[in-house]
């Protein structure tokens, strides 16, 4: 970071405190044992998901999928399908109403054909959409469709696809070669040649990562109902308001106020499905059919079809690193070729820039397209960054005979500066200064028994014949406060309870409970009196769970709304109240100033004389009845000379940015202060190549815990998913036919309760996050960082590096020279 940049950053913060208004005391924020607001619904089976929606007269729609990895439809005969009893409509690719590209989802809203004619991967939804009285009849209808396919040559392998003369995977979009020339991403600082010249040791290695996917428990689906000219839509999406934005462009333009979106609970897809470029294609086709047959239509994928979208860590990566004998890394140069990225290609050397003192860094990411499904951020887009930092730290340590923990500590820093420089910046910005990585590794080392159990690579055979290994990895925390958010909040009449509203997809992180905790503490209400209604259209954009912003963005917005509502209540409490046609009423707290009052447990009281009190319920009064706060028509008003000119109970949607956006620091100059460190103990069977994960220790400096269950759940849940991704999960295609082989939960192995040993979750609260109260995000990171951790752990066990991920038994045996 240059002096100018630093100056700019300091100016952008409007004072030197990271959080200008921290609370002095916390009541429910950070308290253990806060009951989840969604707990009973989810435990009792009452929670409704989009797939559960049943409407009177509802029909079911299924898509035809391509049996070939690359093919176009020459002709199609749907007559038999149309005649099948129970079939109500077969929509075809050549339907006049389907000839335009439409805005159908994606990371940014993409325009694509709703029902394409050409398939670029086996299993792609193309050609026809059959709608029938039941899902089974729709399936049968698809089987009766006769298609004349023209098969095209295809390519599946990342490296083969780059060769000159390779079959073109998508000649319509990339007519010259399979490389996506728009997709080159470069990043770095310093001069890597200089850095390599300074090095005592230079290492070069390559790693590959296969396709893994989200395997979300709820199938992709959606429901459309026309209520006359009004559209009612149920979306299985984590970005409902962005869906509404897309929907408003359809059919020549639908007014936003004529679209009702419902976003029920989500059988999670961890970001994945919601980022897919065609994910509203089903909803579009359902809308077209619903209009024609005048009945609601639900479309669904089957289980296998959900497997075609994958996570964007797939690819091949080449790394060159230079280091001094003491472990100081002098240069890192990386080239990655990533597969089918359906969002702008992302950097792969970012964590060296954001996270280390390494002066010379260069990263180049290129994108290649093969005949497999699209890849999107699943849990997070920063997978390759995590693998790179993990492998560089551990390979340097091994090559120099050092402890990888020491290598991490030696290189910790930011933007090419060391940790002392970073600590000065923390102080300058008003953060409490903690050496976050050091705290995390000390706790993690103690929990895993690092110093006692650590041994040279390949040196410890256990009595059971297996090889014992320990691994370590690290990176920064996810304080990605990207995006903006609006939250509404009001006090209900009659009982003075509080409703927070804002439509957002629930990914299961327990964020809604955390928002209620924030609102309760800020308002001075009881936790049980606050509810977040998040499933229905609120008419504004509430930040989605994307980019770990549940708290770092929506937390700000909730806090802001709660503080404004509280202020309004107190100001109203001292003002002359409702003037009705019959009479007017004196203030609830005559002669007092708002600052002299407080609210606790839903009671407004005078600080100097707590006996002078009134419950919020009494203060806002009953609905429909005349009373101190009511006009004859039941509207809350606060008129009068000294009164306020707005109703007290309603807070308009608050527009609030995440801190970095607010301060302009999201792009360019953001310093990462909080760290995470993870440790893993494995046993590897040298005969079978099987890796048993005995224990995982996750240590996250989350800044400040708002909701313990939420933070810990994301940490251990992420660790379990991470072990799956790093160890067993890979979507496999038959190289000869291009057909996916394991699109089901029997053959695509996600972890069971027995597959991951003990998971110990440790949270550190340094207060150094950019979110409200010093929080950072935690939804994306552990699941993204942990897969790479298996590599050093297995290396420590068997004494040799396994090149490819996931680290399956066949790859272990290959590394051991046994296969």
């Amino acid at each position, binding site marked *: 970071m240059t002096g100018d940049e630093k100056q700019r950053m300091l100016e952008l913060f409007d004072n030197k405190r990271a959080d200008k208004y921290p609370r002095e005391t916390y009541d429910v924020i950070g308290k253990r044992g806060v009951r989840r607001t969604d707990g009973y619904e*989810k435990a*009792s089976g009452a929670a409704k998901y989009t*797939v559960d929606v049943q409407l009177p007269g509802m029909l079911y729609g299924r898509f035809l999928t391509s049996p070939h990895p690359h093919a176009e439809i020459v002709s199609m005969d749907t007559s038999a399908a149309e005649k099948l009893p129970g079939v109500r409509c077969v929509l075809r690719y050549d339907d006049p109403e389907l000839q335009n590209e439409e805005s159908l989802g994606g990371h940014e809203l993409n325009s694509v054909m709703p029902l394409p004619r050409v398939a670029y991967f086996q299993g792609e939804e193309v050609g026809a959409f059959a709608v029938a009285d039941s899902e089974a009849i729709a399936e049968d209808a698809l089987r009766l469709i006769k298609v004349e396919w023209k098969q095209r040559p295809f390519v599946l392998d990342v490296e083969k696809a780059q060769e000159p003369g390779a079959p073109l995977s998508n000649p319509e979009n990339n007519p010259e070669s399979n490389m996506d020339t728009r997709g080159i991403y470069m990043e770095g600082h310093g001069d890597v040649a200089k850095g390599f010249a300074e090095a005592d040791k230079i290492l070069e290695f390559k790693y590959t990562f296969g396709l893994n996917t989200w395997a979300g428990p709820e199938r992709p689906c959606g429901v459309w109902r026309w209520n006359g000219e009004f559209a009612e839509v149920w979306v299985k999406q984590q970005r409902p308001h962005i869906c509404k934005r897309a929907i408003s462009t359809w059919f020549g333009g639908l007014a936003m106020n004529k679209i009702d979106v419902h976003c029920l609970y989500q059988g*999670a897809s961890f970001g994945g499905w919601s980022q897919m470029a065609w994910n509203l294609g089903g909803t579009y086709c359902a809308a077209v059919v619903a209009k024609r047959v005048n009945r609601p239509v639900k479309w669904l994928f089957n289980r296998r079809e959900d497997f075609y979208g994958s996570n964007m860590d797939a690819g091949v990566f080449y790394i060159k690193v230079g280091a001094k004998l003491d472990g100081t890394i002098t240069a890192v140069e990386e080239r990655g070729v990533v597969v089918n990225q359906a969002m702008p290609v992302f950097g792969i050397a970012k964590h060296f820039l954001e996270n280390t003192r390494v002066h010379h860094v260069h990263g180049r990411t290129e994108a290649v397209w093969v005949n497999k499904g699209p890849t999107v951020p699943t849990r997070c887009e920063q997978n390759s960054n995590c693998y790179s930092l993990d492998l560089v730290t551990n390979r340097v340590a091994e090559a120099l005979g050092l402890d990888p923990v020491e290598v991490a500590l030696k290189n910790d820093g930011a933007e090419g500066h060391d940790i002392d420089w970073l600590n000065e910046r923390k102080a300058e910005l008003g953060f409490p200064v903690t050496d976050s990585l050091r705290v995390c590794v000390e706790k993690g080392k103690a929990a895993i028994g690092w110093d006692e159990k650590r041994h040279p690579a390949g040196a410890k055979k256990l009595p059971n014949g297996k090889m014992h290994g320990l691994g370590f990895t690290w990176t920064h925390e996810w304080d990605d406060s990207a995006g903006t958010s609006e939250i509404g909040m009001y006090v209900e009449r009659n009982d003075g309870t509080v409703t927070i509203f804002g439509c957002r997809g629930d990914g299961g992180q327990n964020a809604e409970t955390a928002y209620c905790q924030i609102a309760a503490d800020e308002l001075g209400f009881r936790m049980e009196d606050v509810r977040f209604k998040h499933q229905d259209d609120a008419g504004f954009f509430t930040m989605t769970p994307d980019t770990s912003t549940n708290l770092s963005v929506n937390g700000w917005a909730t806090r802001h709304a709660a503080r404004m509502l509280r202020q309004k209540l107190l100001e109203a409490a001292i003002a002359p109240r409702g003037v009705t046609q019959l009479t007017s009423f004196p203030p609830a707290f005559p002669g007092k100033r708002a600052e002299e009052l407080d609210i606790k447990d839903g009671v407004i009281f005078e600080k100097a004389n707590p006996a002078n009190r009134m419950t919020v319920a009494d203060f806002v009064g009953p609905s429909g009845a005349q009373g101190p706060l009511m006009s004859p028509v039941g509207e809350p008003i606060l008129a009068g000379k000294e009164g306020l000119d707005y109703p007290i109970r309603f807070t308009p949607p608050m527009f609030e940015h995440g801190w970095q956006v607010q301060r302009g620091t999201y792009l360019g100059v953001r310093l990462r202060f909080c760290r995470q460190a993870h440790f893993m103990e494995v046993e590897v069977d040298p005969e079978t190549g099987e890796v048993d994960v005995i224990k995982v220790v996750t240590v996250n400096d989350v800044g400040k815990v708002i909701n313990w269950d939420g933070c810990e759940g994301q940490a251990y*849940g992420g660790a379990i*998913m991470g072990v799956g991704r790093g160890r067993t999960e890979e979507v496999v295609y038959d190289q000869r036919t291009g057909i996916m082989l394991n699109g089901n939960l029997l053959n695509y192995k996600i972890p069971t*309760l027995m597959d991951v040993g003990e998971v110990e979750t440790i949270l550190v609260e340094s207060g150094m996050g950019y979110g409200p109260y010093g929080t950072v995000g935690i939804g994306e990171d552990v699941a993204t960082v942990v897969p790479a951790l298996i590599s050093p752990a297995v290396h420590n066990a068997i004494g040799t590096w396994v090149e490819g991920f996931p680290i399956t038994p066949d790859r272990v045996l290959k590394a051991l020279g046994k296969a």
Partner: protein
Amino acid sequence: MNMAIVEEKRTVSEQAIDLEVNGEAHRLSVQPQWTLLHVLQEKLGLTGTKEFCGEGACGACTVIMDGRPVLSCMMLAIECSGKTIETVEGIAKANHPLIEAYIKHSCMQCGFCTPGFVVTAKALLDRNPNPTVDEIKEAMVGNLCRCGTYPAHIKAIQEAAAVLKVTAPTGGARP
């Protein structure tokens, strides 16, 4: 597949079955290829029973049939006539301590798998009111959770077992 096969499939007549679900008797007309899961969800509106894998690999669709946990996606409804079935809705309605324990220990994230876990755990506690950690793991290993909630379930099941012990001092299974 040709039209003849499809039509033959469609013309097979529906059959009446009797099911007792969560203590209520139902007479239902079902097609021979319908699964029990389909009937619970679509005919009885009991959508708490979930489908994740649809092929016997995940436990999300678990119900208790005549006292034993079964995978309702793998059962044909016509084979279930005369059976007594308990779903998550019935377990919740009976205020089984598992429900509160599941909330307290935050056993759910997205929650889609949660009902299947609750039902499997209920069946375990019915036959073994005092399960060890290993017994819990063995009973629950067939239930998949993509969100990785596993560690929480063990604590919740142990807690529910402890509550049951207090409410049923003989240690016997509750009806």
